[in-house]
């Protein structure tokens, strides 16, 4: 275990050294900066109120879009499993949501709704089909024999959902959530950049590009990666807590 951790740290150090070496070779801080300059830029950003305001605002928008999309996706997936007609009606819409490029959708949403809630809408739209399709697949993967057992022993309602459906649904939701959290941050920040949403991370990225502050651009990118990672861990922990012990791990 300890050896594995040392190995991971050494690999990380190796790549940081490669990055720093490449930056020194490039020797142009407008085009490419090394990890030391990024760390310095981050140290300058961290104590400022504007940094935390941007992080908070983007987290709120992207988080609410994700949670909205997640819950609606689960509910719609459950209903589509129960009522086949709903699945048939939803199919073209879900295909459309899956295939429309994020950039096209962002621009369309910007035209129709402005930039204030752009990130929320975009993330919501990106998350719904992912969660919906996985919820549907999870329900379909439920053990038929256990369903018959539940029928014979009159296990109904909430108990049936918790003890029969949930163990089947859980791995699908975990896998979908992992992808959805990453996609949310990517699409959400892209929407903020295109819409230049005031005081958001996307706006800061945009300004870094305009003023050629490459170190800031890298620092904000690092912040997005860390936020995405933390959101994924927190959400999976929440799912595991809600899943309780009915799910085999």
């Amino acid at each position, binding site marked *: 275990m300890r050896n594995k951790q040392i190995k991971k740290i050494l690999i990380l150090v190796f790549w940081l050294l490669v990055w720093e070496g490449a930056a020194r070779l490039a020797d142009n801080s407008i085009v490419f900066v090394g990890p030391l300059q990024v760390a310095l830029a981050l140290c300058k950003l961290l104590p400022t109120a504007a940094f935390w305001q941007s992080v908070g605002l983007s987290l709120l928008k992207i988080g609410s879009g994700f949670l909205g999309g997640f819950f609606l996706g689960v509910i719609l997936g459950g209903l589509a499993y129960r009522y086949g007609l709903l699945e048939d009606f939803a199919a073209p819409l879900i295909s459309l949501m899956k295939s429309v490029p994020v950039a096209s959708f962002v621009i369309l949403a910007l035209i129709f709704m402005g930039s204030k809630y752009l990130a929320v809408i975009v993330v919501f739209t990106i998350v719904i089909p992912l969660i919906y399709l996985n919820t549907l697949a999870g329900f379909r993967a439920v053990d038929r024999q256990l369903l*018959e*057992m539940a029928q014979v022993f009159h296990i109904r309602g909430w108990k049936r959902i918790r003890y029969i459906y949930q163990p089947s649904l859980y791995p699908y939701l975990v896998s979908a959530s992992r992808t959805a959290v990453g996609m949310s941050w990517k699409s959400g920040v892209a929407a903020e950049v295109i819409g230049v949403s005031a005081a958001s991370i996307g706006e800061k990225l945009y300004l870094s590009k305009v003023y050629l502050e490459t170190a800031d651009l890298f620092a904000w990118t690092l912040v997005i990666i860390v936020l995405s990672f933390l959101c994924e861990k927190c959400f999976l922990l929440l799912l595991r807590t809600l899943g309780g012990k009915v799910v*085999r791990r």
Partner: protein
Amino acid sequence: MRTVKGLCKNYDGRAVLDEVDFAFKDGQVYCLMGASGHGKTTFLQILSGLLQPDAGELQGFPSSGVGMVFQEDRLCEALNPVENLQIIGCRNSEVLLREILPADCLGQPVGELSGGMRRRVAVARAIAAESETLLMDEPFTGLDEETKLRVIRFIREHRQGRLLIAATHQAEDAELLGGEILRLD
């Protein structure tokens, strides 16, 4: 008295049950015998309401559910034996299970138990069900002789006058259960 008249069931054009007639007295034990593929499981599934017969009728079988041991254990793998009984509404699951399972495995997820232990949980679950009928499909599969006798004693003690129909391969099981043999050949 509960009766089964002219029961037929076909799978892909092959008759598994063909004009089966039986009469069951309330509170009695019946052991259903017959070679593999002669429809014992199908018959029990029809009695449980899981399968619809192609023809024939059932009279007197309550629609309020049965206590059933399936051919497979069909347990909730992540739950322990006590919880597997609690989800069907059993309140004294621990007391019941202690009679046929070692105390130290009552807290373990059933997915981690041996085949024999899982089978005993499945039997206890059927016994714990609030039902007027018990249906058991090969309830002693995977049990050694000593455990089988213990489980038979457990069933006899907790049957509480309910009608029990058990499918089994061995005439000895029928004798030990104290039941009348019905042949499905």
